[in-house]
């Protein structure tokens, strides 16, 4: 087959060149003004998540929250968002670079990034460039203690998480009329785990908890085998396990509990892992029983039901969880602020985010508002229990949709 020659040489005359140059100059001159778009155009939101690396599973879970947002925003009559996805690769430096790239590509607001280290890096970039940044999930207190003007966090700080965890635990103990007297505290030896360890040490004495910690066991979050850790914990004869985990280690620990034939009275988790879908699916009946005290959602709120239905439709088989809820709420804040600001001007947007007052939301508490530091200090944590592959909210009472089952059913009697 012969190909027709198209060798007619394209000539550029001096006149054409000058005209082209003028057009390019005009375009370049007006381009900055295009950044501030009139209401009606979708707001460009850069969503930074750890979509690869060891937090990839959670990053992808947060993405499910992004996936179900558009329909709900439309139902609420809020402007649409143009999502610009970026992968932080579970790496602080990459998070910083991706944030800069997103802003360079025209992102008008940033959302993310699940992890405190990565979120801190993005916050620095957002503040430097003057682009509003709404943190979905990150608990390290210093992020909102820097005096930033463009950084907002709709997620409790580590101190708030611990405070609510102890309050909710006591509520559960009162509800079942029993409490452990001793506990082994096991935690991942990463930034989050060690921060929580420090926090528990500082906060727990203020709450007059019924149990005392008889042993503290730190372990590597990337550990492949946790048999020694469980052997050590079992040898203490403690009533309960107090946990600060990630996902994979929570699965490994449960397996070891079964193999080593030890069922404590309760597993009280104060972090992720134990309530996540992969934990429930991997362990089936063995996943039942652990109580997690974490930032959660109020299943009785109207929007929670709406979000739950949207997730069931878009991603059947997944339980609504913290990752979906707080990622959704970050985008809700962005759309709400854009509507009220009436423009995508970064300063106007930041001012609108600062004056957010969303009553109809999903997370536990009175709604979404930010204090002078950009922190939503009204959010409350929740106590949840795994039951039959579902997550039942058992505390606080005002957000509960079930009563706790106590004590943990022995692993060897679960059929």
């Amino acid at each position, binding site marked *: 087959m012969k190909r027709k020659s198209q060798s007619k040489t394209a000539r550029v005359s001096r006149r054409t060149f000058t005209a082209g140059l003028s057009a390019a100059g005009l375009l370049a001159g007006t381009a900055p003004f295009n950044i501030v778009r009139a209401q009606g155009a979708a707001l460009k939101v850069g969503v930074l998540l750890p979509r690869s690396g060891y937090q*990839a*599973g959670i990053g992808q879970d947060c993405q499910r929250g992004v996936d179900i947002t558009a329909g709900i925003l439309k139902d609420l009559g809020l402007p649409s968002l143009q999502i610009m996805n970026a992968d932080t690769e579970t790496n602080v430096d990459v998070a910083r670079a991706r944030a800069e790239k997103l802003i360079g590509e025209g992102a008008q607001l940033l959302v993310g990034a699940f992890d405190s280290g990565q979120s801190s890096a993005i916050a620095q970039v957002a503040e430097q460039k003057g682009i509003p940044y709404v943190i979905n999930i990150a608990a390290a207190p210093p992020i909102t203690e820097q005096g930033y003007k463009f950084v907002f966090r709709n997620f409790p700080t580590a101190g708030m998480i611990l405070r609510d965890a102890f309050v909710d635990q006591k509520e559960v103990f009162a509800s079942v009329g029993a409490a452990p007297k001793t506990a082994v505290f096991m935690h991942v*030896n990463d930034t989050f785990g060690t921060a929580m360890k420090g926090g528990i040490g500082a906060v727990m004495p203020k709450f007059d908890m019924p149990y005392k910690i008889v042993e503290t066991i730190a372990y590597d979050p990337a550990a*492949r085998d946790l048999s020694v*850790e469980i052997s050590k914990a079992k040898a203490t004869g403690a009533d309960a396990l107090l946990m600060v985990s990630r996902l994979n280690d929570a699965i490994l620990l449960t397996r070891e509990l079964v193999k080593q*034939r030890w069922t404590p009275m309760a597993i009280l988790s104060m972090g992720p892992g134990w309530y996540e879908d*992969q934990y429930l699916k991997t362990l089936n009946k063995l996943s039942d029983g652990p109580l997690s005290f974490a930032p959660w959602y109020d299943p009785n709120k109207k929007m929670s039901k709406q979000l739950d239905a949207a997730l069931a439709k878009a991603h059947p088989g997944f339980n609504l969880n913290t990752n979906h809820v707080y990622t959704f709420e970050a985008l809700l804040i962005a759309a709400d602020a854009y509507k009220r600001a009436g423009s995508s001007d970064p300063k106007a947007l930041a001012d609108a985010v600062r004056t957010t007052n969303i009553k109809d939301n999903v997370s536990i508490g009175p709604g979404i508002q930010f204090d002078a530091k950009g922190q939503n200090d009204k959010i409350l944590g929740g106590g949840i229990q795994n039951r039959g592959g579902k997550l039942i909210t058992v505390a606080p009472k005002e957000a509960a949709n079930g009563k706790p089952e106590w004590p943990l059913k022995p692993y060897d009697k679960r059929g």
Partner: protein
Amino acid sequence: MPAELYLNVAVGGVLTGLVYGLMALGLSVIFGVVRVVNFAHGEMMTIAMYIAVTLFTAFHLDPLVMLVPIAAVMFAFGYVLQTRLINPFITRPEYSQFLLLVAVAIIIVNLLLIAFGPDAQNVQTSYGYDSFQIGPLIIDATKLYAGLAAIVVAAALFGFFQYTRPGTAIRACADNYTGALVVGLDVKHLYALTFGLGAACVGAAGCMLLLIFDVTPAVGPAYTLLAFVIVITGGLGSMPGALIGGVLIGLTEAMAGLLFTPSAKSMFAFGILVLVLLFRPQGIMGKKTS
């Protein structure tokens, strides 16, 4: 702490160490003969683990039952990898071999990530949560089966090298490359056979490890590093050394976790490595070279 606690932890450490040893055996065999350091070793094991996961998910085939077929597949993979990709690099500088195998490792990790995603995967065998109780001793059934299978596979490999003609020929290649060429041995084929055997070893180890640990695409580099620690401790190129090194590292990690802090387990394994490098650089079972 009660004595049974030490006993339980030590037995668990030895059984895990046996599987570690089998994994490292493949690396040791490849280096001992081909003189190529396989930096894609752990990643090759993750391929075997994913094959086992896929077969289990699709057909409920137990990884221990599939151990031989998966080892055969990995043998073929290793054979082809050696003949098509690595052979031209045999005579090139070591850094180019290093870069080649690191590149292979990165490609494997990323292909697995694309194919299987980042989530941890595992198999739920009927005996997955079983344990045997002998007095105060509780032995994890999967670790016991995996440890016994590791001994059987290592013995079979040892028998192959000692008592078969191809095994003898491979040893001849390892002892004297030029001599092997002079007597007319097909060295390239024997190298590929060796690489295939190393890959088969790691494939078998992957099937066993899957009973104990979950697999993610990202675990490969950690296993490569672990295999290096084991073979250097046991003696690079020594088959018994790899098994002994594996048991030593498994036991050290377990006891360090018990006696000190679990999060410092790896530190003690690397501490053993440093001691070996300082006082017996050829490794526990390695031969001193002039």
